[in-house]
């Protein structure tokens, strides 16, 4: 066993206040965001519904838009962007 002795250190307080590092959220570029399948499907269904006049396709598009909105992650004011885009 190559473990070093120092059992005392295990009983000592492991906290080190000077070693505190504040939280830095990992920066994700816009290109590396996980692909929004729900939004993509919503667009496809919407176009299909418009072109071929299938009611159910348009409704499925609305459902997938709702799914995409529900799964939105709060990365840098996504909600604000979507609202401004919609309006």
């Amino acid at each position: 066993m190559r473990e070093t002795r120092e059992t005392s250190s295990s009983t000592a307080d492991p906290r080190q206040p000077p070693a505190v590092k504040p939280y830095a959220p990992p920066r994700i570029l816009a290109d590396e965001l996980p692909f929004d399948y729900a939004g993509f499907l919503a667009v496809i269904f919407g176009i299909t519904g418009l072109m071929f006049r299938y009611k159910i396709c348009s409704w499925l598009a609305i459902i997938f838009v709702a799914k995409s909105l529900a799964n939105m992650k709060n990365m840098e004011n996504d909600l604000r962007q979507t609202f401004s885009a919609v309006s």
Partner: protein
Amino acid sequence: MAKPSSSRWLRIMSGFSSPSGDALLFFLAIFFFVSLLTHGISRISVLAAEFEGFDADDVEHEEEANEAFDPKFLKSSPLTPTSLTQTSFPESHHGPPPSSAAELPTDDASVSAEKPLASSAFELWDDEEFEGIPVHIADPTSESPSLASENPVGDGVGDGSAVNASNRQWRLSSYFIEILCISFLIIFIINYFIGKRQNELIALCWASQFATKDSIFDKNFSLLGTGDGKEDSPLLLKEGQDVFKFYASGRRYCQGLIATMELRSRHDLIARVMDLLLNKKDSITFGIVMNEDAMDHVVLAIARKKMARSMHKDAKDLHRFATVMATQSSGRRWVAEELMVVTESKEVAGDLMTDVVIDQVFGEKAFDKFGKGFISLHFTDQHPGSCKKLLLFKFALPHANNMVDLTRLITLVPYYIDLIGRYKLSIQARSKTEAPRAKAAQESLKEMQSARQEALQKRRAEKKRLIEEAEAKLSAEAVRRKEEKERARQMKKLGPKVRMLRSH
């Protein structure tokens, strides 16, 4: 008078917009039935009576009838009754016209309007033969709603006035898709709020068990949460309705700890159903970034067999440096059978699987009891990415009420931080691990250099392009300047003559 009925259908149909495909088939069915009825009646009457002057008219109006049917039958303006009734008669013997997709006469007004017109048409022919027809024609209108009730597609309706009701019910059922989708959306929205609350409850239960005052993380780290660390700052960071993060920092041997809770997407109805089918579990992943001097050459992963194999394939460092470890036959206590160890060095694996750990968590008995929540464990100092020295633990989150079950697995986290922080390899183990790492370092250097060279070449190419464009512009400008100079000279030549004249 076989075809006054069909003429009436045609007129009514022309005043009606075409419905969907299902309704179309239904109307076709009704139309065929009615035309069969009237066909049968007309046959009987033909056999019984004599016609006079019928054939001559037939020839003239047959062609008109064919024309009248095709272009006009869907127009809203009603066709002249006489031509239709006259021309429809020859058709009666040939069966119903193929192109006419009949529609149900749902307007009482149109039905009543047809009757006087039809009766005037009847007068042209033998009344005796067609006496009962208006009554019979009225009957089909009442029969067709009853037909509708028999027909599986249509709604059940009683009689005459119920035609309007059938019309309304038809409209209701024709909105079937809309009703279905709107109800789905309503359920979706309700489920969103329910699922959101459920997920928040699980995250808060975990935090109250392990991250509040006098809890395990409070005793191990001086800063908890992503805020200032004061009393009121929030402990958990909500990244999505199903992703929660917990940050802790200020401990020996490590820079910080990030716990990521990935819960089932209970807020999204479609994803919830999919997760049920795929049997997804709530999980929590601890990522601990070790200090540069705190971790020696350790590449180790432990998981259940299937998971371990996929980890060995997917993780670059495991794939490169580590191999699957066969079970130790030395008689020493080892991890449970269902677990597989992937390690660079057997010695290191043996050192890190201490007796304490095997007794408490990974041994046969202990694992049966406490190991349900354990998913995987991955220690590496060659992590591909910005943080090289990383400890990763992945556990399954129990139910909100059973958070205590996770305690023993969570105590592994600070235990291993200390263990690996203090651990030093033996000389033999170090010599074995040095060679592949040196190789890896060289390769990464080469890649960096080649990337830099490519970037330099790109910059040079761009610069050349810019210069060439500038030169081209300059040359164009130079040409213009020359032309201007020439004009100026010419003007000057002309100029002095003018002056001479003026002086005079």
